[in-house]
């Protein structure tokens, strides 16, 4: 049984005059020890997915239907008390901005001890010992002294390490990291990513990494979901998706990167913008920007089906897949 199994999850937001659907029936699994990347642009629904997994969606948003089976329990219809037990304890979340995630008026030690004591019967001394241990695991120098410091005394990279240490305090089985390094510099980002990868592999913790950066996904994850306008449009092994993307959007996303073009040449851009949730077109949401779109793409939402090693939601993919392989054979 997978650790996390999401089935037909639908999340809606009740706006002023209408209800918009942010997640349009998404399904995926995360196995124990698996590292999954969720890739997409802003508005694709990747952050909403992260929040929905912890059942953290707050008004005006709500989980409309679907199941989030975590370790066999459905997160979507748990009571608040049960949810609190799961959150932090078995499932932890790391947010984007380390500057605002920590409470500025409490010391690092207070925040860590408080989290521990909320879930475990521990004395202050014991809790502090665990805290020091966890800080050492994330390579924070002089961890005993850090306990007495306030967040503002630490740099951004240090804070994100402490946030990771707090996420690991209760030995969760799953960590959801929502753009954990977007607010950090490249050199710090690389350090944090390496640390996160090391912790996940040595402790056999599952990771869901939400990001817009395909390079990061490539380094960090085994499996990848690509989201577009509230749907999963491609899923499979990360290597397969990056080396041989099937969906025209994934192809476009990878080809648009500056590394894929010779310096000074025009980048291969995807025309247009992602449709807003309230103005999604009929049929495939990508049809207006897709060079392969046919009439059928403008009428029906494509099924999400296995094509070769990956699952893709595209009407034209079989034909395209076939054609490219024929060309390769000829060559």
């Amino acid at each position, binding site marked *: 049984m997978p650790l996390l199994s999401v089935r037909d999850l639908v999340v809606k937001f009740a706006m002023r005059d209408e209800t918009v659907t942010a997640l349009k029936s998404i399904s995926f699994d995360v196995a124990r020890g698996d590292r999954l990347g969720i890739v997409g642009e802003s508005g694709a629904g990747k952050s909403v997915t992260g929040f929905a997994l912890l059942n953290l969606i707050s008004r005006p948003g709500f989980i409309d239907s679907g199941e989030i089976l975590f370790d066999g329990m459905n997160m979507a219809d748990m009571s608040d008390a049960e949810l609190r037990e799961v959150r932090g304890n078995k499932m932890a979340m790391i947010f984007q901005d380390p500057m605002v995630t920590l409470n500025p008026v409490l010391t690092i030690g207070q925040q860590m001890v408080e989290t521990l004591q909320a879930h475990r019967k521990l004395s202050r001394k014991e809790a502090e010992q665990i805290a020091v241990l966890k800080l050492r695991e994330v390579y924070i120098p002089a961890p005993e002294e850090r306990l007495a410091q306030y967040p503002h005394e630490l740099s951004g990279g240090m804070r994100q390490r402490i946030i990771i240490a707090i996420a690991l305090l209760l030995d969760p089985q799953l960590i959801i990291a929502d753009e954990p390094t977007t607010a950090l*510099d490249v*050199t710090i980002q*690389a350090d944090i990513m390496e640390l996160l990868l090391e912790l996940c592999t040595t402790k056999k913790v599952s990771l869901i990494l939400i990001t817009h950066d395909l*390079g990061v996904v*490539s380094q960090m994850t085994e499996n990848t979901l690509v989201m577009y306008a509230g749907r999963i449009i491609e899923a499979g092994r990360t290597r397969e998706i990056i080396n041989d993307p099937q969906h025209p959007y994934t192809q476009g996303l990878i080809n648009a*990167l500056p590394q894929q073009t010779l310096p000074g040449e*025009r980048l291969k851009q*995807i025309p247009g*913008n992602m449709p807003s949730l309230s103005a999604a077109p009929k049929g495939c949401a990508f049809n207006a920007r897709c060079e392969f779109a046919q009439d059928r793409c403008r009428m029906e939402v494509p099924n999400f089906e296995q094509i070769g090693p990956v699952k893709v939601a595209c009407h034209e993919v079989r034909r395209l897949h076939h054609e490219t392989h024929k060309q390769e054979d000829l060559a």
Partner: protein
Amino acid sequence: MKDNASNPAILELENLSKSFDLDKGFLETIKFKKGRITREKRSVHAVNDISLTITKGEALCVVGESGCGKSTVARLVSGLLNPTKGAIHYDGHRIDTLKGNALLPYRKRMQMIFQNPYASLNPRMTIQQALEEPVRHHNPSFSRGQIKDKVTEVMQSVGVDPSWASRYPHEFSGGQRQRIAIARALTVDPEFVIADEPISALDVSIQAQVLNLMLEAKEDRGLTYLFITHDLSVVQHFGTRVAVLYLGSICELADTATLFANPKHPYTRALLSAVPQLSDDRPNHIRLKGEIPTPINLPKGCPFQSRCAYADARCGTEQPLAIEQSDGSVVACHAVEEGRID
């Protein structure tokens, strides 16, 4: 870079420095330390002694991490800030001392594109108003029709439908707003454009669109760019030359191809290795020890010494000079100078 000598320099920065005072009033400068009252003035040294020449037609990229002073360089060049020391020459004329109307002709030749397209357009002005305003301001003799034609032409050139001109910025997506912001800069027909992280607030697929637009504008209008960014893959694609900034000093300046093929400064190497590539299946970067020191009290000697694996006693006392290498790149590093790094 020697081959550039044929092209005239459009912008020269001469020993440019900028520091911001942290303690402004007299009372703030009084500190209580070790049982003694002392007077101390702290300041942030954002940019230290930078000299750069930008020749016509090139795209000079300034890269670095947050706090390295790259945005300060852009704001100094655009005249939004005044340098503490040094001089800025544009086309042979010193511009950092000019004020008001004397600066106006240079404003027309030199424009700026900002990072955040959600903040760089006035939310209470329609696109038409926002684009007409600079045309009218810089061409007082233009008739209504001429102004309108100019606005239409600029909107078309950035790929925004001119029939949307009566809309407000909030009705556009981030990418379209950035196009409009670029259009606004182009309304005065500049020859030199300062772009301060123009695509970092945009989505990946939109970044490509805006970058293409900037490349097109470069070719069609013969623009020269000063491009500020933290994204090295964009630099590799867009820049003709690169200046790597660390703690307000240039550590390496080279042609883009040279820099990416053969980075010399230890910081440049670490920076390049930290960019996640699609072909990587695990992080593999050069780890730097420690973190970027604050630019309040700059270390003596090389600014990078505290994190450098090659630092020795000389790096701690003596600031390295920018020395030109055999392949034309300019590197400020004792270890490179002494041949301690292969």
